[in-house]
Structure formats: structure tokens, C-alpha cells
């Protein structure tokens, strides 16, 4: 029923002697929530940097909706509907929450080589951005400087920014990192709300989040995908348990 | 153009190159480790020249004067680091550029008050004056050979310190990961002060060596400073190897450009056109070179940080 939205074939990237991505193959289906997990140093960051276009592979291809995007820059991928959030919160601290989101809306609605009219007075940008802030639960905080938001709110703002680009695929890099229990719950609720409507790639350490959200999981160890499958399959996979899950589940 | 002349000009280029390297080494280290853009680096060049001249005249001994001049520049460098620059490490480059621009005005005026605005008298001891016959027909000033030797020796010493000693290990580590060095329990502040002081002393060394053949006057550091920035930008900021390569490239390009651009232009253009275009081109050559290098490699030839 589902088409492949993102396809990665034979991706390889090395830094000197270190092979950070070792013939990675990955398929993300339209509409699914696909988690990528792996122990520290497994090469997750390198992999997603190559997916998002912040880093270019030595070999291999990345296909997005059937198009080869291997050589495209991050902005070009973003314009094709590939959005991402960052492990370390990446927002505009000196803009208000609303302005943060409006910029992302602006990026996908017409030319930005417009010099005359104040952007903040464009009703279409405003209303679209307000609606998205509402959606992620920041409706009441739109006028606050992003720097003054709480950590959890900043994470939500970042997701709002990504959503505002009307993406076909949303890559979330550790969305609950550094959050307290309550904030984590709120974020999981938000992501559950998004799930289904959007294709999500979730890179996460928090196993509660992964297992409650993911449709499928890929396990990355030493730069290789050692298993891909539904959560139960992954839980049962002996190789995964040995290499990675075992320790944490046991503990 | 005969072969000897080209050889002699190459020696001249080498000599200018090592001089630039002495300046560039400190500047590039300070940037690589402390992330500080220091426009006032030229001021240490000036301080070195003034202090060495002062101590040489006061003591009557050239070697003593040079040693005291070096030590004095080191002390001034450390003092400047402690008083003014330390607070700038975490600030944006813009603030650094402007604050150190302010320091230039201060040092130039201070030198003018202490020693007057006129150039002061400096000279060489007899044993450094005179010439060496390198080949039949190629006489070269002894002092310039000494500068080349000292410069290459310092480059070798720097390589040894950076590549082979614990201090060098810290410097290399500091350039790539400050937090890690701090976590190792190293007194980072002290390390910074030391690096800055020695960088200043190297600039002072360049200044005091140039004193007797150039001119010791307020503002002498700025003329060379911009060229030194060209050097480290071409080489890749933060890289000692890049500084050496950049210095030699700029030294050679500038010298050979001054010597041969006009005669070469004259072979294709009219005499008068060459007379106009030659000097203009020669004086723009190193900037042109830098623009080309950066257009091709925006991080310079040897980027310090991948």
C-alpha cells in the first residue's frame, strides 16, 4: 500500500580510518514513523547529516520521492519537502516564537527577494505560523523571544519550524533529549499527533519514545544497519539484543 | 635576466618570507588556539624593535640588547594579554578587530611619546655588517643570511615544540578542543597567556631583526601587519605549516613581482604602459594571490580545522 519516500543505497562515508557509514541501505515508506536507533558512536549523526544534505557521502545514493538528491544541498532538499530538527536545539534565539515559524512559512511561499513590505505584516504568513504554533501547543507564547522559552518549548518550536515548511518528511534528531519526564510526555503526545499524517524519521535514545511511536525501527551499529523491522521483531532479534538492546533491557 | 640575479632574488624572497613567517606564526597560533583576531600583533613588532634598540644603545652589546628586547616584548605581550585581550577571547571577531584596532592607536602614540615621532637610530654590530661571497659574482649581505638562518631555526624549533613536546601537544589539542584540554586539568588561562606571550616575542624578534635595515618609528608594525594577514589567510588560519607555506609564497611572490613583473610586461606592452601597469600590478600582486587562493579554497591552503 505504501510507496517508498526515502531510499538510501550503499551509503558510505569515512573520516580518515574511521568508517562512519558502511554501506548503509535504508527505506522509509510514505506515512510511516521510522526510528533509527543505535549505541553512541554508531554513526547516527553522520547518517542523518548525509540524509539532510549537511554532509556528502563518499559513495552511494539518496533518493527522495524517486529523485536522486545525493548531490543536493540542504536548502535544496528542504525545498523538496525534507525538513529536520536538530539534536541541539536550533532556533533563532533573538526572534520571537512567531517570527521563527513565520520565516519557515516564508521559505515555502513565494520569493523572498521582496524588499518593501514588512514581513511581519503579511497576513498569510502570520496566520499560517499562528496555526502551527497552536498545533504544537505554543499558541499562547507566540510573542515571546525564542531565547526566553523553556527548553521543552524550544524543542516544540523547532518542530513547529520544521512543520511550517510543509514537509513530506520530517527528520527528528533526538527530539526528547535533555527533557524532564513531563516535557518528554508532552513531546511524545505531540509526535503521536503528527504520526500518520506525516512521514517521520525518528533518531532517538529514549526507548520509551521509540517503542511507543515507531512503526518500524532500523538499528545502526558501527556504521552498519544490522536490522530493520517492526518494534516486536527488533525486540526479539538476538543480534540486536546482543549488540545493543541487551544491555539496556537487562539494566 | 641572468641566473645569478634570479637566484639572488629568490634569496631575497626567502628572507622576506622567513620574516613574514616569524610574524605569522604567533598570529596564527593565537587565532588557532584562542580564536582571537589580533590586529595589534604589529605593535609587538614595533615594541621589539624599539626595546632592542634601546637596550643595545644602553648596554653597548648587541646580543644583550637583542635578548633584553625579546624578554621585554614577551613581558609586554603577557601584560597586554592579562589586561586587555583575555576578556576578548569569548567575544565575536568583530569586537576583537575593533578593540585591537584601538590598541594600535594606543601603542603608536605611546611610542611617539616615549621615543618621539621621528625614526630612531639603529645599527648593526661590525661583525654582522658586510658581505659574503656566495658564488663568484654573487655577494650577499651577511645580515640577511643571518635573518634567513634565524628564521629557519625558529621554524624548526617551533615544529619541534608543537610536534614533539607536551606543551605542543596541549597547543594542538587546544586548537581543536578547548574543553578537552581544560578537562585534562591543564591551566588553560596560563597556557593562553604563555602562547600569547611567545607569539608576541616572535613578532618582537621579527621587529628587532628588521630594525637595523628598515626603519624604527611609530606605526612601523602596520605596514607589515596587513601582509602578514595575507600570509595566514593564504596558509589557512591557525596552521603553523600554513603560515610557513603562506609566508614563503608571499615573500617570493612579492619579491619576484617587484623585480620581474615590469620587465616582463615590457616585453609585451609598450615601455610606458609597462611603467604604469608594472608597479601597480606588483603592489597588488599578493592581494590578487590571496583572492585567487580564497576563491579556490575558502579555508586557505592548509585548513587547521576540517
Amino acid at each position, binding site marked *: 500500500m505504501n510507496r517508498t519516500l526515502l531510499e538510501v543505497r550503499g551509503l558510505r562515508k569515512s573520516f580518515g580510518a574511521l568508517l562512519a557509514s558502511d554501506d548503509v541501505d535504508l527505506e522509509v515508506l510514505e506515512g510511516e514513523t521510522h526510528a533509527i536507533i543505535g549505541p553512541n558512536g554508531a554513526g547516527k549523526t553522520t547518517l542523518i547529516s548525509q540524509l539532510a544534505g549537511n554532509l556528502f557521502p563518499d559513495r552511494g545514493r539518496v533518493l527522495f520521492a524517486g529523485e536522486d538528491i545525493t548531490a543536493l544541498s540542504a536548502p535544496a532538499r528542504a525545498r523538496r519537502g525534507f525538513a529536520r530538527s536538530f539534536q541541539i536545539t536550533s532556533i533563532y*534565539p533573538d526572534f520571537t516564537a512567531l517570527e521563527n515559524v513565520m520565516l519557515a512559512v*516564508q521559505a515555502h511561499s513565494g520569493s523572498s527577494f521582496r*524588499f518593501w513590505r514588512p514581513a511581519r505584516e503579511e497576513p498569510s504568513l502570520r496566520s499560517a505560523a499562528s496555526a502551527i504554533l497552536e498545533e504544537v501547543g505554543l499558541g499562547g507564547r507566540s510573542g515571546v523571544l525564542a531565547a526566553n522559552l523553556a527548553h521543552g518549548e524550544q524543542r516544540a518550536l523547532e518542530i513547529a519550524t520544521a512543520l511550517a515548511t510543509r514537509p513530506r518528511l520530517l527528520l527528528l534528531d533526538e527530539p526528547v533529549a535533555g527533557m524532564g519526564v513531563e516535557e518528554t510526555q508532552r513531546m511524545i503526545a505531540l509526535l503521536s499527533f503528527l504520526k500518520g499524517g506525516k512521514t517521520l524519521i525518528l533518531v532517538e535514545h529514549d526507548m520509551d519514545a521509540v517503542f511507543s511511536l515507531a512503526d518500524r525501527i532500523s538499528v545502526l551499529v558501527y556504521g552498519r544497519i544490522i536490522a530493520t523491522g517492526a518494534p516486536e521483531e527488533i525486540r526479539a532479534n538476538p543480534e540486536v539484543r546482543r549488540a545493543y538492546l541487551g544491555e539496556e533491557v537487562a539494566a | 635576466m641572468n641566473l645569478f640575479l634570479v637566484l639572488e632574488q629568490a634569496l631575497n624572497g626567502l628572507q622576506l618570507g622567513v620574516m613574514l613567517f616569524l610574524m605569522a606564526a604567533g598570529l596564527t597560533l593565537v587565532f588557532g588556539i584562542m580564536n582571537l583576531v589580533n590586529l595589534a600583533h604589529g605593535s609587538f613588532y614595533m615594541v621589539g624593535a624599539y626595546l632592542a634598540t634601546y637596550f643595545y644603545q644602553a648596554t653597548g652589546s648587541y646580543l644583550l640588547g637583542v635578548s633584553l628586547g625579546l624578554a621585554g616584548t614577551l613581558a609586554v605581550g603577557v601584560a597586554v594579554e592579562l589586561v586587555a585581550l583575555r576578556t576578548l577571547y569569548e567575544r565575536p571577531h568583530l569586537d576583537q*578587530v575593533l578593540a585591537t584596532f584601538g590598541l594600535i592607536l594606543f601603542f603608536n602614540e605611546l611610542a611617539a611619546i616615549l621615543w618621539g615621532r621621528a625614526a630612531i637610530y639603529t645599527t648593526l654590530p661590525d661583525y654582522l655588517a658586510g658581505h659574503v661571497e656566495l658564488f663568484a659574482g654573487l655577494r650577499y649581505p651577511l645580515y640577511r643570511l643571518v635573518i634567513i638562518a634565524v628564521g629557519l631555526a625558529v621554524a624548526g624549533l617551533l615544529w619541534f615544540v608543537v610536534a614533539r613536546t607536551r606543551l605542543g601537544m596541549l597547543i594542538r589539542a587546544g586548537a581543536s578542543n578547548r574543553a578537552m584540554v581544560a578537562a585534562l586539568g591543564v591551566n588553560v588561562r596560563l597556557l593562553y597567556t604563555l602562547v600569547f606571550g611567545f607569539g608576541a616575542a616572535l613578532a618582537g624578534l621579527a621587529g628587532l631583526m628588521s630594525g637595523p635595515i628598515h626603519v624604527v618609528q611609530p606605526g612601523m608594525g602596520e605596514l607589515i601587519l596587513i601582509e602578514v594577514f595575507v600570509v595566514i589567510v593564504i596558509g589557512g588560519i591557525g596552521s603553523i605549516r600554513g603560515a610557513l607555506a603562506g609566508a614563503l609564497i608571499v615573500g617570493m611572490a612579492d619579491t619576484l613581482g617587484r623585480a620581474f613583473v615590469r620587465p616582463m610586461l615590457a616585453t609585451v606592452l609598450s615601455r610606458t604602459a609597462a611603467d604604469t601597469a608594472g608597479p601597480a600590478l606588483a603592489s*597588488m600582486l599578493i592581494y590578487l594571490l*590571496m583572492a585567487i587562493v580564497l576563491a579556490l579554497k*575558502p579555508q*586557505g591552503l592548509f585548513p587547521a580545522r576540517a
Partner: protein
Amino acid sequence: MNSRIRAIVPAAGLVLLAAVPLAAALLDQPFYLDLVRRIMIFAIAALSLNLILGYGGMISFGHAAYLGVGAYAVGVLAHYGINDGYLQWALAIGASALVALAIGAISIRTSGVYFIMITLAFTQMLYYLGISIEEYGGDDGMRLQVKSQFPGLIDLNDANAFYYLVLAILVLALFLGQRLVDSRFGMVIRAAKSNEVRTRSIGFSPYPYRLAAFVIAGAVCGLAGALLVNHTAYLTPEFMNWTRSGELMFMVILGGMESIAGPVLGAFALLLLEDALSGWTQHWQLVLGPLLVLSVLFLKRGLAGLVFAKNE
């Protein structure tokens, strides 16, 4: 109450600046007319620099280049007997924009210190070029025999008229600058400064926006150059000296980068300070230097930050 201040203060400032010619005439002190006119010209240049430096985060250490290009455009045309102001000023703006396009196209590929240094290097090249062109006076420069002619519109030899023209251009630059930084384009420039990675990942390539801003800033500064050469009635490569670029940066920082009008304040502060200090002691740089260091260290938001409380 901040908003009320923000409504009243610009109007009051404008009225006071507009009153300078009258006050100068009443007090029989025409010198102040010249002084304020010169400062306003530098304020326009500093304001243009602030577009890329303060809002765009591009630390150009070579902005004086466009001051020079603008001045040379006027001076060179006048040298060949073409005194038509429209043509001269159009060339000043066009030529500076072109030069900025060339310099920017290469420089903006670099970042950080490399950007600072490559912009400095390009300006040094232009400076040496200016010195070498004998036809236009070389290092000596040359006198602008006839000021730019705007028949039927304005006579620049009339000190008051020229003053009001500069004031009008300054006010226009402030107004347009404010529109620009608030526009879609301005938001992208500011976003790229604030967080480049984020900006790229929402789909903006900063390069074309930065380049456009660089060209706009160059063009405005070129106009300031055209004004400056008419003000001094003298053309000299000194306009492109690297210390001049440093002074422009100081005006921006001293005044404050967070507002469009900050650099104007900075221009007034720096040039008045220079004037006062140099009248007081020949060692004025000994005082000015540390003052500048202190202002960088302690006036993080510039003078504008001192005068007005943080607005959000």
C-alpha cells in the same frame, strides 16, 4: 512608554538636524553646517555598512572601497568635463554596486576571519590602484573643480541646500533601511546571521541573499562617496585607506548594531570625539585608542543601547 519615546524621538531628532543651518546662521557659526554635513555623509556610509554587518553578520573590513568607488565615479566624470549630477551619481551607485558584486561574489564564499581579511585585501587592491592611476592624480588625488550639477533642482554650491539634500538622503536611507530589514528579504538576512544552519534547513540558501545585501550596501555607500567628494571638493585614494574602513566599523559598533539609526549616532559620536580630542592634544590617539577598546568591552549594545532600554 517606550513606544511613545520611539514616536517622538525621531521627529525631534529630525527637527533638530533640520534646525542646524538656522542655528549656524543665527550664531554666525557656518562651520557647524560643514561639520554636521560631513558627519551625516559618514553616517550614510556607516548605515550602509550596518545593513551587512549588523543585520547580516558580514564583517566587512573593506567598506571604504565603495566610498572610494563612488567618489571616483563623480571625480572621473568631472575630470572629463561631464558634470551632470544625475549621470555622475547614477554611475557612483552603479559602479559601487558592480564592484560590490565582484568582491562579494568571491568574499561571501568565505566566512569568519577569512571574510574579514579578504574584504580588507580587495580594498587594499583598489587603494593601490587609485594611487597608481596618474591620470586621476594618483596619490595626490585631484580637485573636483565643479560640483555635481542638477540644473533646476538644486545647487550644491549653496551650503544650506547641500546640507538639506544630505539630510534628506540620510532620512530616506534610514526609512528605506528600516523597510529593508523588516521585509522578507531583511528577515532572511537576519536569520542567516542568527542561525545559518537553521536557515539552510528551512530551505534558504543564504548566499544570494547575502550577495544582494552586500551589493545594496555597496551601492548606498557609493552614493555616500559621491556626496563626500562633493563635500570636500577633492578626490583622493585616501577615501579607501584601510583605517577608513576601520572607522566605519567603529561608527557601527559604537552606535549600536541593533537599530537602523545606531550607526548615525556612532558617526556623530566618533567624529565629534575625534574633533574634540584633536583640538585638545596632539596625542589624541593615546586617548581615543583605549576609549575605543573600553567601548567595545563595555558598551555591548552601543550608544543606542545606553540611550534606550532593551525594547522587548
